[in-house]
Structures are given as C-alpha cells and as structure tokens.
C-alpha cells in the first residue's frame, strides 16, 4: 500500500488511487477543486486542469520533483510521494491562471443564469479572486439549439468538461449527444439535433459544473437562493427515488439529485422523478438538506441537525453557568459559615 503525503497529511491508500482521490480521503482542506473529474463517471477528468497539484517528491525510489504541475485526477500515487496543494503559492498562482483560461469564453451572465448560486465555476472564480479579464477579443458564441423540452442548452456557457457526454454514455443505453468539431469551435450538441429522451438524460443537468445544461421546467422560475432544499424520497421503479426537492413556499419548483460534499450526486435519478413529480404529495420528506454554510443557499436555511446543535450548545452554556453560580454560592456559604 503506497503512502502519500499531501500538504503535510500522510495517508496510506490502495494501489492505483489517484492523488485527487487520496486528497479527498484526507478531507476538503487538502482536496483540490475539480471541474471535469466526477468520481461516479468512469474515464472522466483530465480536461479542465483545475485539479493541478505540485509533486515535490516523485516517490521513495525517485525523490526528484515532477517538472511541472500535474493533473491530480489522472496521476496515480507512488509510495513516498509528497504533494503540495494549498501550501504552495506557485501552484495557487498557476491554478488562478487555469481559472482565467476557463473564464475566457465564459459569458458573464450570472445575473441571468439559473445555475448562479450553485455554480462550480462561479465559486472557483470567487475563490481565486479573478474579477478582471485580460481578454480583449470577441468571445465564442453559438447559435441556440433546442435539444428537447426538458433540458436547456446554453453552449456559450460550456467549459467542455465532457461530464455530460460520459453521463449519457454510461447511464443511458444510447447516447444522442456529444462533442462536435475540434479545438476552439468544439461544441456540445445532439447529432442531427435529436432530442434527448432517454429516461436518465436529466442527470446531465446535475453533472454540469456550469449553467450550460439547465432544467427547462425550472427555467427562470426562481433564483436558487430563494428556494428551500429538502431531502425527500419516493417509490420509483426506475431509480432509487432519493432526491432533493426545492421549495418556494408550498410549491415544488424543481427536483435534483442529492449532492455530496464534492458536489457530486449520490444517486442518479430518473427523468420521471426529476421533471414530472412536482407535487408535495408525490414525495416523503425527510428534512432540510445539508447546505454548506458559506453557500448563498444557506441564507434563511435552517437545518434540524444544526438547530439541535445550537440548542444543545445553548443548553450546555446555561448548564455551565448554572453550575458556576452553584459553586460560587456554595463557596460563599462555606465562607459565611466560617
């Protein structure tokens, strides 16, 4: 079992594990961000270069550092490898450059985009403070293509991560969309503009890290931070039926898969659950979903667990104070007795 050290944290991982997976095993404090790698999709990763890390020591046998940053999602760990991620200022600078490249052709229409508020690219740009652009040329734009009545495609926002292509490849029986052309004119499209009508095709919305593929039934209904995410399940013949439903008032505005801490869905859900079941009576509600408190969606979002923790903390505090008072009074009494 090779041992690898990432940002000073040592971990023993099975052979064949990538640096990114090892970092995720340690935790979010060392895990590099990923825009194209998706642990649930085979052969994903290696396109976006967001997850680059610096290998300061190749392995125990060959302690030389690797000459340039490597994509951690595609590099397997070696025994004795030492990796620097957030501890290396050079690497953070390099990653900032990657973010700038990703944003070169990305339109700045976050105020319009339905993904805003839960967009990986928005978070990434914010984290790296890329407010300026140095790009003076006209941005890549595309003519709008209708790819069916369920999924909305905005090709201008696409960063060509190939996640949706892999999803369609591995989840649906026959894929009808893919990347056409090459280089800077490559685009996601359906072949002869076929509609995507496979029962799993809705999952491309969840895997899309940007707002290129969005839910047409939710289009412009509400901004995500005005909706309340709730975990719910239902009996579904095709999928596990475990989903996250987004409320605005009493109304269910949209249904998505449940995302874990890496922003990946836990269970794929079928199109029937995603697009058709928009009544509260269709679902058994489990409770408010866990939302990272730094997210804008956490505005006015109260989770049962956190509430319980808060109440517990307050009770503990009160109990502590009461105890203190008791001991104070008892010592006073003791001194008074003396």
């Amino acid at each position, binding site marked *: 079992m090779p041992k690898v050290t990432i940002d000073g944290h040592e971990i023993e991982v099975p052979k064949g594990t990538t640096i990114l997976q090892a970092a995720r095993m340690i935790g979010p404090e060392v895990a590099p961000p990923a825009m194209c790698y998706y642990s649930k999709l085979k052969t994903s990763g290696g396109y976006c270069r967001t997850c680059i890390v610096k290998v300061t020591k190749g392995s125990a046998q060959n302690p030389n550092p690797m000459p340039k940053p490597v994509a951690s999602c595609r590099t397997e760990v070696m025994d004795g490898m030492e990796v620097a991620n957030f501890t290396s200022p050079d690497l953070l600078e390099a990653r900032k450059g990657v973010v700038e490249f990703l944003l070169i052709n990305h339109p700045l229409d976050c*105020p319009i985009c339905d993904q805003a508020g839960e967009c990986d690219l928005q978070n990434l740009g914010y984290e790296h403070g890329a*407010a300026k*652009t140095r790009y003076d040329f006209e941005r890549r734009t595309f003519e709008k293509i209708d790819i069916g009545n369920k999924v909305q495609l905005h090709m201008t926002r696409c960063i060509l991560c190939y996640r949706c292509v892999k999803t369609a490849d591995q989840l649906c029986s026959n894929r009808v969309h893919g990347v056409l052309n090459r*280089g800077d004119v490559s685009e996601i499209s359906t072949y002869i503009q076929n509609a995507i009508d496979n029962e799993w095709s809705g999952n491309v919305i969840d895997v899309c890290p940007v707002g290129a593929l969005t839910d047409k039934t939710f289009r*412009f209904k509400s901004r995500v931070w*005005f909706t309340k995410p709730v975990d719910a399940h239902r009996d579904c013949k095709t999928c596990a039926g475990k989903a996250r439903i987004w409320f605005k008032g009493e109304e269910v505005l949209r249904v998505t898969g449940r995302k874990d801490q890496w922003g990946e869905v836990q269970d794929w859900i079928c199109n029937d659950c995603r697009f058709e079941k928009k009544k509260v009576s269709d679902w058994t509600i489990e409770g408010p979903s866990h939302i990272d408190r730094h997210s804008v969606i956490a505005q006015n979002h109260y989770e049962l667990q956190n509430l319980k923790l808060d109440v517990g903390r307050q009770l503990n505090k009160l109990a502590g104070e009461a105890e203190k008072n008791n001991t104070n009074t008892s010592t006073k009494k003791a001194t008074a007795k003396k």
Partner: protein
Amino acid sequence: MQALTKRSKVVVNKQLSFVEKLYLPAILGGMRITLTHLFKKSATVKYPEKKRAISNVYRGQHVLKRDENGAERCTACGLCAVACPAEAITMLSAERKKGEEALYREEKYASVYEINMLRCIFCGLCEEACPKEAIFLTNRIVPVEFERNDFIYGKDKLVEPMEKDKRIDVSIRETTEVAEFKKHNEYGHNQVWDGSKAIDTKKKKKAH
C-alpha cells in the same frame, strides 16, 4: 426606610402659600410663554405645500432605470432582494419573447417587481448590490397613503417612464469611485456582451 436606589428623592408634601393657592400668577406665566411663541418663527413647515430642502443624494423612493434605448435594465437576478436587510423586495422573472428586445435588455426580465415601502428602511443596499445599474434610490419622498396595500409599489410605480424627457436623472448618485471603475474595460462588469452577434459555427467550420 432604606432607599431602594441612590437616585430616589424624598418627597416633601409642602403646604402652598396664599399667593400660590390663587394659581393666577402661574397661569399668567404659562400664557406669556405660549403667546411669545405665536410671534416666533415656526419650527415646522406645512409639508405638502412647502417642502424642506433635502440633499441631492437623499435616499428616497426607488426607480428602476431603463437604458439609453428605453429597455428595462433589471434582469431579476435577485441580488437586491438577497441584499435587502428588511426583506422588502420580491420579484418574479420571465423569459423575454421574440420582439420584446426593445422592452427588456436581457434574456430574462422581472415580470413582477415589488417593493414594500413600509418595510423598506432606505439603506441603499439594493442599489449597491445591483450588477446591472437598474435600481437607484432618488430624492423623491414616498407619499402618504391610507391603505397598507398602496405602499407595495409594483413596476407601474417603480419603472421610469419611457419618454426621454421624463426619465429620472440619477447621475448625482454615481460617486467618483464608481465613475473611475467604469472606465476600466478589463472588469467583466463593464463589458457589454451582445448575444445577438452569434457566430455562425457552420461558416467558421468552412474557414478552418
């Protein structure tokens, strides 16, 4: 008895003298003060007829601006509503249809935009949050109403008129810092993207 606080005073039930019992000197003294005030300059103004001078950057009733071509700038991004500490702003968005390009600047627009003027604290955070320079506070005072519902201002009251001469000038609210920021084209904020100029990919393919 021991006093409860240090500030307590002992009340003395003093008997009034004969002159004091007449009350007339005290009444006359009070009348004198009242009468002198009749001839002094009033501290208030008679509001609807006469208006007190207010600052040009006074934060009063909001305006939803139109751009140079008369299209509404607001794209219902919801940042004003999320920034609002009083939760006074609500909105619903809709998609722009073909032929409405002159009415709405972006693909999405606010079909309903409401500000509850009773909730609003006129802090100006909505104006600060707006990425499209659509909402501004103006030096107009929100008029008095008799019904609560009348204070919920919809787009009919908030959006400025289409006529160029009736537009509301908010240039005074642009600080020197903002004017300086706008000069920099490298900030994404200041770049204008024209979606209609889509490149025909087929043509480009031939060129390759």
